[in-house]
């Protein structure tokens, strides 16, 4: 560890929040339908969308209609993407002549991109045509991110409402978030990345004769356009197999900084946007503070872990200052930690280093950051919504202690809200631990593992954690392109996305109908340091205790094995 490393981590995490502040105000204006400086260009496009799609932008939806629209849109996206992947050999822009994907791989990939997970069971440069990357995957990078953001927009209206019924219009939230926020930001970032060396071409692979007279096939693609939205949309699915570790996706420390900051900018912006739209700015600062502290601690722990002596380097008598297996020289331990923390705390899942080769606690902390429920800051809007569920539980716990009906942001939280919050939170461990338990004894599942012992269990746990949390990063030793893995990971992604989403919208509906209360002397202040501590405690206990037994058999056991090897 050195001061440069700490400074790099501090800069990355700090810029994410600093840029999110003004961006959050803008995002809130977009959700509220206020004027923005892009109106002259985008208003006509937006109106065109509504005219063609038959959308009445002034019509407010109940939570039920909002959720129906949410599901219908995702279903349409899934069907189209599945079709593109199965038919890519018949479609244009396929200079490598790639064949169609198998049924289970197409299912897994379509679910993965529609649910904003971007788990990749395939190596992009050896599987996907340019058409599939652009018209299939890039589209869902935008669509799934915007769909997640609608959850926060709806929730903000529910908290603001007084005996209301409607929580907004799904279609306008979806279209406006995409047109006014995701697309313009992606254009700016994509052009900057090309200038810094990221390719953007539709040409085929390049054949080079190396200096030593050998032969090298260099895979190319329209990288920058997808890279920009995969980071900004908190998606994480790379063009190439090794994602943002590939020098074409991330050629220099500067591209590393830009793309790492992009991971969390809109996630935090959704927090601030919720604060402005629901008129609860101070309370949102408490949510951000709790999330930021946990994220900073996790990221620091990964940096600490990756600068411990690695057993292989010790055995070889080499320099042990950084564990360089599975890391790029330009990033080193600090740059890899500054990426691994945010990518797992958010639901991004892109990687610039191979998490499978992290030392046991480094990989373990990445897993814990996902298991906390993708709220640090999670996906755009979906992370904020999950964080609000945690806050509901925190006030519920506090309410139990003093014997009062809990309130949050001026709304009484009653049995229905708490039940729905628990449904949303419990499907995650159920899918994660349930599938992991079966996979740990099933020969068809175990055949996919690269490493034996506790590290093998970590490969399983990491995969289902990543899928159920809609993260998408991997312990890539696992060969996941097989029927068992593709199917069960696909199911975990579906459950992890849509059960909480519908529950959150149902909570929004219930909250909207309640009267908005003014705080009284008996109301627990939810903008104080005390509440930040309470919330962080609830997050850690819920996340930590549920998964601790499984982690004890995986990364923690492996850590003690390592200590026995390197005293």
């Amino acid at each position: 560890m050195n001061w440069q490393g700490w400074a790099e981590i501090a800069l990355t995490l700090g810029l994410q929040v600093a840029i999110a502040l003004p961006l959050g105000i803008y995002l809130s204006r977009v959700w509220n339908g206020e004027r923005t400086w892009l109106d002259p260009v985008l208003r006509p496009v937006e109106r065109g969308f509504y005219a063609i799609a038959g959308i009445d932008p002034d019509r407010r939806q109940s939570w039920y209609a909002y959720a129906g629209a949410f599901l219908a849109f995702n279903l349409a996206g899934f069907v189209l993407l599945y079709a593109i992947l199965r038919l890519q050999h018949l479609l244009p822009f396929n200079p490598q002549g790639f064949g169609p994907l198998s049924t289970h791989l197409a299912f897994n990939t379509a679910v993965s991109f529609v649910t904003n997970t971007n788990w990749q069971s395939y190596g992009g440069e050896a599987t996907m045509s340019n058409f599939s990357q652009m018209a299939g995957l890039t589209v869902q990078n935008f669509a799934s991110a915007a769909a997640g953001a609608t959850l926060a927009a709806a929730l903000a209206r529910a908290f603001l409402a007084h005996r209301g019924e409607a929580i907004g219009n799904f279609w306008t939230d979806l279209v406006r978030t995409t047109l006014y926020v995701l697309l313009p930001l992606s254009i700016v970032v994509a052009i900057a990345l090309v200038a810094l060396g990221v390719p953007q071409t539709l040409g085929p692979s390049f054949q080079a004769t190396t200096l030593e007279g050998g032969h090298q096939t260099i895979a190319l693609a329209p990288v920058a356009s997808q890279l920009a939205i995969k980071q900004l949309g908190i998606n994480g699915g790379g063009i190439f197999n090794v994602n943002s570790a590939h020098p074409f996706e991330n050629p220099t420390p500067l591209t590393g900084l830009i793309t790492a900051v992009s991971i969390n900018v809109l996630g935090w912006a959704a927090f601030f946007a919720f604060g402005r739209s629901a008129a609860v700015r101070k309370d949102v600062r408490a949510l951000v503070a709790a999330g930021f502290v946990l994220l900073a601690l996790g990221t620091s722990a990964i940096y600490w872990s990756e600068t411990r002596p690695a057993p292989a380097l010790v055995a070889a008598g080499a320099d042990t200052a950084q564990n360089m297996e599975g890391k790029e020289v330009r990033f080193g331990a600090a740059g890899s930690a500054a990426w691994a923390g945010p990518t797992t705390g958010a639901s991004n899942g892109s990687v610039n280093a191979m998490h499978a080769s992290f030392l046991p606690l480094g990989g373990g902390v990445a897993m814990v950051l996902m298991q906390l429920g993708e709220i640090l800051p999670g996906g755009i809007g979906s992370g904020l919504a999950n964080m609000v569920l945690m806050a509901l539980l925190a006030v519920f716990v506090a309410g139990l202690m003093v014997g009062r009906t809990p309130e949050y942001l001026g709304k009484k939280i009653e049995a229905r809200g708490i039940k729905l919050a628990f449904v949303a939170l419990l499907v995650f461990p159920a899918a994660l631990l349930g599938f992991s338990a079966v996979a740990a004894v099933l020969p068809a599942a175990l055949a996919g593992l690269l490493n034996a012992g506790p590290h093998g269990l970590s490969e399983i746990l990491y995969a289902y954690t990543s899928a159920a949390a809609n993260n998408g990063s991997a312990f890539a030793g696992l060969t996941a392109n097989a029927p068992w893995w593709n199917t069960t990971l696909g199911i975990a992604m579906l459950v992890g996305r849509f059960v909480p989403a519908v529950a959150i919208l149902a909570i929004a509906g219930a909250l909207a109908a309640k009267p908005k209360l003014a705080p009284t002397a008996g109301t627990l202040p939810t903008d104080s340091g005390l509440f930040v501590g309470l919330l962080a405690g609830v997050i850690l206990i819920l996340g930590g205790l549920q998964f601790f037994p499984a982690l004890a058999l995986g990364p923690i056991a492996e850590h003690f094995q390592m200590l026995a090897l390197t005293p």
Partner: protein
Amino acid sequence: MLQHLRPALAVTALFTLLLGLAYPLAMTGIAEAVFPRQAEGSLLARADGSVFGSRWIGQHFEGPRYLHGRPSAAGSDGYDASASSGSNLGPLNETLIEAVKARAAVLRAEAPGATIPADAVTASASGLDPDISPEFARLQAPRIAAARGIGEADVRAVIDRHSEGRLFGFVGQPRVNVLAVNADLDSSAGAGVATQP
């Protein structure tokens, strides 16, 4: 659900046209017009125009005359730029530990007594890492100088020309671009390699 059918299909179709085709194609057009070299992969060509690699993509070197890159797990022979991959071996994996020991032994025979840099004996994340640490580069300078029959100081000067420090003094790691050094070594030797197309 039926009232959602038309908007769902129409918005999906419009998104596909706008975000799946217009956006990437427009970005490609702008990129090719404004930054054509970067857009096409920052390819490097010899004086006769034949491409010998990309500035960002490491390639395999094993002869004593060249600076060697890091061990690579991309493809079966390493540095396969159509199959990027790390080893993904866990930190306690025996295969990994034995491989690292064997690589260190080779380097120790070449430069007795030198500290072995970590990047010299570990596989990169991408298998295509274009860089090595300055320590690993300097360790190889005597071998390259002997094989080429030139002064060690000359080799070091070439290495320094293609070294970069941390951005702003603290972002990223110091590094040496292997392919750039080797192309430079060849062109100083009159082999006619240009570093820019």
